[in-house]
């Protein structure tokens, strides 16, 4: 069944504040196998011009995937999550996320379409600090394989 295209353009209000901790950044850096000292050592981060340790460029997914669930799991959308794969991901960085940041995100549904029997939904999450400073925008495309009965479009 095709997805409900009336979701295109919907925005979801800022989610609760996510406070970025040094220990979480380190844990994430270890999980991606990256020993760069700028993720771990505040002195190394300062030497590179950052006020504190920064997070890896893909770290925002920890925050934005959760925010995206507001639409992905909305039963009205009609997405069969058991058939969903991650199609594409893009991060546009205004400045790196760093320890101590208190971030909120606004979710927007950019597009919904069917192609080759698959349903695609593209979303973006604009992450900013509590004070309104833009930090990162995360764009995601999810693909539900074989769920569209409209065929090629």
């Amino acid at each position, binding site marked *: 069944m095709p997805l409900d295209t009336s979701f295109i353009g919907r925005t979801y209000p800022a989610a609760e504040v996510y406070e970025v901790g040094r220990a979480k950044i380190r*844990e*994430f850096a*270890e*999980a*991606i*196998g*990256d*020993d*760069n*000292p*700028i*993720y771990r050592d505040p002195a*190394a981060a300062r*030497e*590179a*011009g*950052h006020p504190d340790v*920064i997070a*890896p*460029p*893909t770290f925002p*997914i*920890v925050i934005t*995937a*959760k925010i995206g669930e507001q639409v992905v799991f909305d039963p009205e959308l009609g997405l069969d999550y*058991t*058939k969903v*794969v*991650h*199609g*594409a*991901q*893009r*991060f*546009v*960085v205004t*400045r*790196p996320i760093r320890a101590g940041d208190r971030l909120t995100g606004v979710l927007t549904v950019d597009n919904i379409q069917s192609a080759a029997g698959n349903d695609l939904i593209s979303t973006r999450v604009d992450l900013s600090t509590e004070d309104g400073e833009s930090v990162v925008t995360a*764009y995601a495309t999810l693909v539900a394989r074989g769920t569209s009965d409209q065929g090629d479009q």
Partner: protein
Amino acid sequence: MTGADSAGRGAALSYAGVVEGTELPEIRSRIRRADLIRYCGASGDFNVIHWNERAARSVGLPDVIAHGMLTMARALHIVTDWVGDPGAVTEYAVRFSRPVVVPDDEEGAALLLTARMAKKLPDQQVRIDIIARTGSDDAGWDKVLSMARVIVSLPS
């Protein structure tokens, strides 16, 4: 971005000094089941296809697969190891074209990363294109990401 760190990252890199077409040093690494479990915990993505082969097979996958986001993160090492400061990355985009299948053994899956300085952009930025493959020298290598592009800001 003040030159190389102790691991040699970011040595003498400048916008003026980089040349389009330059290949970055290749990286070979492995993704094992334990890496997937660790990434589940760190990212909060506990989708069963990343740790339960029964569940993976039930949806038509050959075995447990790595998180696309873990592959995306690992692929970026080739750029951040070269540039030194990961804060220089201003944009990073990929399409997930093929899953990295991770068998339940000591070897896991191999990841082969190559990258090329594709284009000098205005404002001291450059675009680097990454090619990420899984496989082996014997059996051949398959691309797992497409359009994997990074924009970094370099010192003058």
